[in-house]
């Protein structure tokens, strides 16, 4: 025990005369650090309710609960955090696809009641709702992949010289990589009119099980290859990854799966009971809705016959969609599956009034899916001049193999998908094409992607151009005269209407004027007593929640019914009718839902 070692410890008394370490505030409260992980905050306006936070939370601390005032277009759910589970790892914040979730730097919460530590950030008001500081998402650390695997496409210059498909399609590797971006939120399922099981088949693709993926797809889509190529893909519009990055290429993934198999009959095995043996169903119109009804009833053992006026099934997807988007073999593949499933197909056969009456007598139910086949006229002076043609007619003639002469220069009137298709077909037939559209480019009903492709291929788009009249010009050509329009917004939320600016007339000398302004129903084949009951003034047909019209035993679907003019809605109508028909013929209890397989329709 040396003197040094006895005396040295007494230097500790120096501390008694210096400042204590104790924090001065009586309650020891300090503001949390700038990126402290404290209580959750959520911007409910930008939150889309995708549930990725709940998915990544390893403690199951986050539940998605319905809130009173959801913003339209999301799931209507918001995360509720249970601080009896949370571990403040902030993975939920980092994964949040919309970037709405954050954490404040507040950290004191004391309660006597264990059940009080549960709240919906942003909905239940809390003192820290407006906290500026705290843990937020940061560039450079993403738990989800925001970048889409690029889709290989033909070069625009290349495309116009050939009818080959523009989109090349993913390879297996690319598809698996793209599929692994999915966060499985399921917002797409709600957005898809047919409520396809999108996350499920994407998961199957990711796991490399293409057969399973195809079967999941066939759960509620009988024309998936068509959808994989030309769907309007509302699913991608709501995709949660798309909020901060590029949405998942759901359509291309579906396309990838369907392209993997040359003969679907070997692969698709629907596991359903054949409840419909002995029941006969007639389907008028072989478009997507009709095909859907036919397929799902046929696999249930119904005796199904499709009557189609054109030489091929497919309806608008056959005669309307050009082959560089939807090649013939793809369609034939799907029709073959239909045949293999036992559907009788009668093509080149137009049902007329008496036959329709006969069909009703012979069958347990009849489904009408004739679509909107009659183009609306231009109704401008000169519309009956030779050289003015209708896009629908032209596309149909082209697809059934007729030769079409479009001359050197073409103007297409209209801005829908039909107009774009007609333009691109004309382009490939060797013409120089201009699109004249009454409204602005943003108002065009055609797919944005289509418009971009068309422009890339060299199609000019003239907007706010109101066709006034068509006159005969020299050399058998036509003088297309149009006036400029101004856009007026009459009601909030509706698309603005064009209004002619009088006094100005523009001329365009062309060989052909192709009209694609719109199309309506054509019911001349329908017996009056039926039309009287089911059709409204515009020719549209109203159906109930089972897809049945006001006429007992007649079901309807497709463009006739839903007016959205896209294939997936038609398929959804078909699915609804499948359930409805089964209930109608008594093989399915009327009150109960069928369950989720294979026809799942959310009410």
């Amino acid at each position, binding site marked *: 025990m040396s003197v040094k070692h006895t005396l040295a410890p007494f230097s500790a008394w120096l501390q008694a005369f210096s400042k204590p370490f104790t924090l001065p505030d009586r309650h020891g409260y300090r503001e949390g650090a700038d990126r402290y992980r404290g209580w959750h905050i959520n911007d409910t306006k930008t939150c889309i309710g995708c549930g990725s936070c709940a998915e990544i939370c390893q403690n199951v601390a986050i539940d998605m609960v319905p809130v009173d005032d959801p913003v339209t277009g999301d799931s209507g759910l918001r995360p509720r955090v249970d601080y009896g589970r949370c571990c403040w790892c902030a993975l939920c914040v980092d994964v949040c696809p919309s970037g709405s979730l954050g954490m404040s730097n507040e950290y004191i919460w004391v309660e006597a009641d264990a059940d009080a530590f549960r709240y919906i950030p942003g909905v239940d008001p809390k003192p820290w709702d407006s906290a500026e500081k705290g843990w937020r998402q940061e560039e450079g650390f993403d738990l989800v992949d925001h970048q889409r695997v690029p889709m290989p496409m033909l070069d625009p210059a290349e495309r116009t010289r050939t009818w080959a498909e523009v989109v090349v399609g993913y390879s297996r590797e690319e598809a698996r990589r793209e599929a692994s971006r999915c966060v499985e939120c399921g917002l797409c399922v709600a957005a898809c009119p047919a409520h396809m099981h999108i996350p499920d088949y994407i998961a199957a693709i990711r796991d490399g099980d293409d057969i399973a993926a195809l079967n999941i797809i066939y759960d509620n889509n009988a024309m998936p290859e068509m959808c994989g190529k030309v769907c309007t893909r509302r699913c991608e519009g709501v995709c949660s990854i798309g909020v901060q990055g590029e949405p998942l290429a759901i359509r291309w993934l579906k396309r990838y799966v369907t392209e993997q198999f040359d003969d679907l009959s070997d692969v698709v095995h629907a596991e359903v009971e054949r409840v419909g043996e002995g029941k006969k169903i007639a389907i008028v119109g072989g478009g997507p809705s009709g095909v859907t009804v036919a397929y799902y009833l046929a696999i249930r053992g119904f005796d199904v016959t499709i009557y189609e006026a054109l030489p091929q099934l497919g309806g608008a997807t056959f005669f309307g969609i050009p082959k560089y988007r939807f090649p013939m073999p793809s369609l034939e593949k799907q029709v073959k599956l239909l045949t293999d499933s036992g559907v009788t197909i009668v093509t080149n056969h137009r049902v007329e009034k008496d036959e329709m009456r006969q069909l009703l007598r012979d069958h347990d139910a009849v489904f009408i899916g004739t679509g909107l086949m009659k183009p609306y006229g231009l*109704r401008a002076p000169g*519309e009956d001049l030779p050289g003015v043609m209708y896009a629908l007619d032209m596309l149909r003639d082209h697809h059934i193999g007729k030769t079409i002469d479009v001359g050197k220069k073409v103007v297409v009137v209209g*801005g829908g998908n039909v107009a774009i298709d007609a333009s691109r077909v004309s382009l490939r037939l060797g013409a120089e094409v201009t699109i004249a559209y*009454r409204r602005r480019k943003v108002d065009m009903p055609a797919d944005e992607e289509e418009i971009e492709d068309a422009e890339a291929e060299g199609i000019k788009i003239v907007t706010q151009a*109101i066709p006034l009249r068509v006159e005969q010009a020299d050399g058998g050509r036509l003088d297309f005269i149009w*006036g400029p329009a101004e856009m007026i917004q009459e009601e909030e939320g509706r698309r603005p209407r064009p209004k002619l600016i009088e006094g100005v007339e523009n001329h365009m000398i062309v060989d052909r004027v192709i009209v*694609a302004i*719109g199309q309506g129903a054509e019911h001349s084949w329908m017996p009056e007593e039926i*039309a009287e009951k089911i059709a409204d*003034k515009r020719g549209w047909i109203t159906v109930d929640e089972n897809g049945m019209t006001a006429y007992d035993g007649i079901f309807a679907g497709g463009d006739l019914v839903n007016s959205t003019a896209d294939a997936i809605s038609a398929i959804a109508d078909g699915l609804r009718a499948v359930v409805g028909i089964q209930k109608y013929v008594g093989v399915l209890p009327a009150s109960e839902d069928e369950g989720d397989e294979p026809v799942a329709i959310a009410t």
Partner: protein
Amino acid sequence: MEFQSVRDILDFAITKEQEAHDMYADLAGKVERPELQKTFREFAQMELGHRARLEKIKAGELPGFTDEAVENLKLSDFLLDVTPRPSMGYQDVILFAMKAEKRAHDLYVGLGKATQDARLRQVFKGLAQEELKHKHFFETEYDEFILEGN
């Protein structure tokens, strides 16, 4: 034609509405398609409604014509005239109705110009406005549903 009073004018207008109704009712019997028959009957009913409105104004139950601005899409200005046929389609039906309303509107505008009495002119202006409103109804229908892709 001479109009002495507001009453006269309204009586005239009521007659006009009645005529329109009769015409639509007549057409409803002539077209082939049942759904368009319904459409014409609907239009006829609409004209009856207009007539009832004018009668109420005449009886003083309604204050008069509102002065709200109505947008003129001018669709009827450059589109073709339509002759009613039994096989006409919905596009033509709307177009026909639109043109009919435009004609009525033009009539009141013309009458208004020919009238010296400022008060009566006001009434004609109001009636023209009414017809413009009806026309606008059809024009929006045309714009929205017929020219869907354009």
